[in-house]
């Protein structure tokens, strides 16, 4: 699991109405300013993450970086597929309620390919029937399946080869 090095750590006590004070070291490290919006999220392993949900100014290098990062998000499967106005309304309602996107993956926490494959399948069921997958998504799934099947059969053939060698060795020893 590649979660990266911890660069700053701090503690805060939960007060009335779920209020916490973000430790100064974290504020400094994240470059937060008064009025910034912070996104809190919890992943499947119970790790809480804080992300500044900053809206950067148009035409700045930061805006360009954000766009490139979003393109990477999509190419690595971190997106929600919206196919109709109904789905759009549901999706935006979900964002307002702070829900996790229906079709999401996290390259930093889902490094195990088998786990990744198992996670993709239920996500697709949420996104809709398999016949409604885009060509790109179908190719991704096919590539993933092919890689795992190749790996599986390679291991199987390797095991059979070892067993055959062992049996041949045993037969030779018996003859001797």
């Amino acid at each position, binding site marked *: 699991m590649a979660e990266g090095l911890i660069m700053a750590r701090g503690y805060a006590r939960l007060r009335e109405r779920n209020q916490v004070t973000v430790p100064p070291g974290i504020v400094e490290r994240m470059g937060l300013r008064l009025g910034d919006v912070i996104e809190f999220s919890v992943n499947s392993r119970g790790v809480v993450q804080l992300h500044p949900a900053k809206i950067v*100014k148009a035409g700045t290098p930061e805006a360009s970086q954000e766009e490139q990062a979003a393109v990477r998000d999509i190419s690595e499967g971190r997106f*929600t597929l919206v196919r109709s106005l109904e789905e759009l309304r549901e999706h935006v309602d979900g964002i307002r309620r702070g829900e996790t996107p229906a079709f999401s993956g996290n390259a930093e926490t889902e490094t195990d390919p088998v786990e990744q494959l198992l996670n993709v399948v239920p996500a697709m069921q949420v996104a809709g029937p398999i016949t409604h997958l885009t060509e790109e998504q179908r190719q991704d799934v096919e590539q993933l399946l092919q890689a795992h099947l190749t790996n599986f059969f390679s291991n199987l053939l390797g095991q059979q080869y070892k067993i055959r060698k062992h049996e041949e060795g045993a037969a030779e020893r018996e003859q001797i």
Partner: protein
Amino acid sequence: MKRVLRSANRFDDKLGGLFETLHGREEELQAAVNRLLGGLIDGTVNWAPQLGPMWNYDVCILPLIDKHSVVFRPNESKPKYIEIIYSGTGKKQAILDFAAATRIDMLNIEGPAD
């Protein structure tokens, strides 16, 4: 023309942040999102200014609310015409026609420039 949108998680984060920033005006923002993104899905929105300099060809930008704009990339687009922005610096800006697009990637929400 019906299209699908691929809403990047990062875009959703920005939208969530905007809902928080515009606390008390959530319905207004939701209506604006449904109108703009709905237009991209049902194909009634077919052209938009191209983002940034003219070499950056396939990324578009459209206003959402309070000078906040939505940045997106259609999978098919072609130059429609060149517009000269007289009110600003006099720069030229390309308008892209993405009527043939079948998929649009939602990338970012940007705040007003200085």
